[in-house]
């Protein structure tokens, strides 16, 4: 029987998110599984509610991705009501969506990745936090992060009333338009965001790419996982967060599928394993092949690294330049899990540039913000790129527009099996012969932190200490040692 190590990063909500690492009889890593708490009864909760309530309900599913849920839901409503948003409405939606990408990506980079890369993976855990990052980069930069976040959230608030849990979302349009005065404010926020994006890129290059030991870590086999990838791209196969077709490439980089999100059931399979409630997604046409990487895998990844591998380029000039440097350094496809962080910063730059483009668009302030020419269909699939990857909302209603069926596929679901594999590889490199040290565990944690997995489905946590607890168990499952910080 295998030994078992449990990394449980959240103490308040038991089992909220955890990684089980199983050791073999020699004390080496045999397997690793990523799990999140099962939230029950969402479909039952929704059934019988008017479809138009969904964009207001779904942001409460998750405190981490409220805007993507809101947007996927709104796009599903477009299909249910058989109506396309007006050009101005689409611009306003994209404004909201790009603002979300900027604030979310920077909070991730500075708060979650920053402690590992800016402070250092081996640093004292007491220093390896956002305060340690600020001590390194300086208080002014810390203030800038907060300012960019505040101003981009003001854009979300302007359009959807609340940034944490957007309330806007109408089929065929948006609840309000943009005035000329607001356009000026948005343009200033866009300029600030582009300027900050360039700073953040430089910080990444200086602290990671110019640091040989960090770069070696990024390029090491411990953080390399060969899977397929899936992401939304536009007609020219450039990165698009809001709309497009889903493109899939295999581990060698060959395109294996290119389809409209409405057809997702033909391409995405959902598999149930006894150790998790998550329906593990895989490429349906290949069938479920288990938790394996390489040429024979049917697993794919989503999120920033997937968007990098799947696209033919970025949609804006400065981001494209940065993308080209990343391609020059890592090649394509890149299977380096820690490269998720690099692409995250390039995407924040694209989102900021796109804010500038939208702010300058004459159509932005048009009053034509709603298309009410409804052709009710009763069925709708809404698909967006959440910051963490492909997000799909699939609804069906009765003839009165009341929900009768709901299916959601979220980014962490696509990535759940690969996260387990990534942690297994990192743990194999850093945990040997049953020896488990704090620093080594952080290396294993870095593998799952790269994906920025959504553990926040309960939307908040009691704001207290959340120590890492590691239970080392003997073959009978008894705890023989507990390590915590």
């Amino acid at each position: 029987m295998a030994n078992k190590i449990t990394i449980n990063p959240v103490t308040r909500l038991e089992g909220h998110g955890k990684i089980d690492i199983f050791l073999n009889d020699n004390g080496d890593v045999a397997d690793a599984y990523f799990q999140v708490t099962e939230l029950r009864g969402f479909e039952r909760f929704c059934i019988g509610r008017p479809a138009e309530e969904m964009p207001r309900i779904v942001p409460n599913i998750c405190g981490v991705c409220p805007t993507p849920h809101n947007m996927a839901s709104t796009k599903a409503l477009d299909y249910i009501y058989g109506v396309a948003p007006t050009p101005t409405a689409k611009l306003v939606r994209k404004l909201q969506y790009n603002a979300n990408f900027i604030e979310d990506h920077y909070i991730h980079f500075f708060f979650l990745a920053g402690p590992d890369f800016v402070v250092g993976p081996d640093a004292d855990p007491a220093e390896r936090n956002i305060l340690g990052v600020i001590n390194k980069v300086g208080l002014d930069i810390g203030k800038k992060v907060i300012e960019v976040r505040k101003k981009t959230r003001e854009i979300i608030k302007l359009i959807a009333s609340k940034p944490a849990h957007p309330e806007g979302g109408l089929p065929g349009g948006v609840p309000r338009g943009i005035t000329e005065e607001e356009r000026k404010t948005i343009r200033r926020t866009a300029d600030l965001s582009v300027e900050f994006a360039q700073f953040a890129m430089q910080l990444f290059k200086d602290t990671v790419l110019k640091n040989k030991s960090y770069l070696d870590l990024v390029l090491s086999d411990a953080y390399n996982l060969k899977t397929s990838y899936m992401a939304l791209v536009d007609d020219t196969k450039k990165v698009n967060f809001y709309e497009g077709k889903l493109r899939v490439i295999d581990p060698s980089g060959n395109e294996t599928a290119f389809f409209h999100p409405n057809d997702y059931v033909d391409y995405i399979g959902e598999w149930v394993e006894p150790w998790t409630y998550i329906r593990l997604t895989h490429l349906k046409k290949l069938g479920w092949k288990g938790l394996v990487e390489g040429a024979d895998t049917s697993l794919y990844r989503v999120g920033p690294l997937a968007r990098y591998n799947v696209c033919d380029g970025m949609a804006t000039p400065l981001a494209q330049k940065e993308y080209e440097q990343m391609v020059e350094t890592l090649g394509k496809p890149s299977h380096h899990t820690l490269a998720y962080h690099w692409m995250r910063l390039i995407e924040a730059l694209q989102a900021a540039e796109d804010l500038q483009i939208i702010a300058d668009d004459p159509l932005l302030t048009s009053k034509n913000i709603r298309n009410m020419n409804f052709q009710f269909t009763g069925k709708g699939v809404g698909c967006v790129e959440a910051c963490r990857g492909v997000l799909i909302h699939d609804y069906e209603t009765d003839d009165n527009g009341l929900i009768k069926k709901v299916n959601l596929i979220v980014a962490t679901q696509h990535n759940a099996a690969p996260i387990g594999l990534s942690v297994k590889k990192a743990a194999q490199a850093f945990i040997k012969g049953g020896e488990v040290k704090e620093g080594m565990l952080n290396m294993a944690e870095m593998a799952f932190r790269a994906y920025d997995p959504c553990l926040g489905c309960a939307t908040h946590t009691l704001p207290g200490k959340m120590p890492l607890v590691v239970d080392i168990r003997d073959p009978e499952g008894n705890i023989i040692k507990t390590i915590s910080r």
Partner: protein
Amino acid sequence: MKKKTLIIGLGNTILSDDGAGILTAQEVEKQCRGLPDIDIVEASLGGIGLLDLMAGYKKVIIVDSIKTAEGQPGKIYRIGMEDLGNITYPCGPHFLDVRTAVELGNKFGYEMPDNIEIYAVEIKDNTTFSETLTPEVEKAIPVLVKQIIADQELMK
């Protein structure tokens, strides 16, 4: 200038008992409506979002739910900042602890509260989508409301 008290009801009202903190804050608001120098807000967030909310207030009272290993649903806890432990690596950017949020705010020059208190009610179910509380937690809400009003001398 800092003078107001902020009461934050934390939770998610579509996840059964997870809404206990928000429902408590709503009831406190009903009973204390119109009192000067007290703001009451509902929030479904943690981490850095708390910094935004708390900045500028003299005192903050957080009302939340809690789940402990051996806890009895409905039990009420009063927790001070000193009980929250040291700053740790967050398990997510949205899980910044309240101490870090306060320290960050202070560093950035915001006026952060001098005093933060947390009330929490032990809950039973926070994983089922429902707008209904379990009976033990539902019974605890009026008790907690009364305790907060008395402890904090809100009706004085």
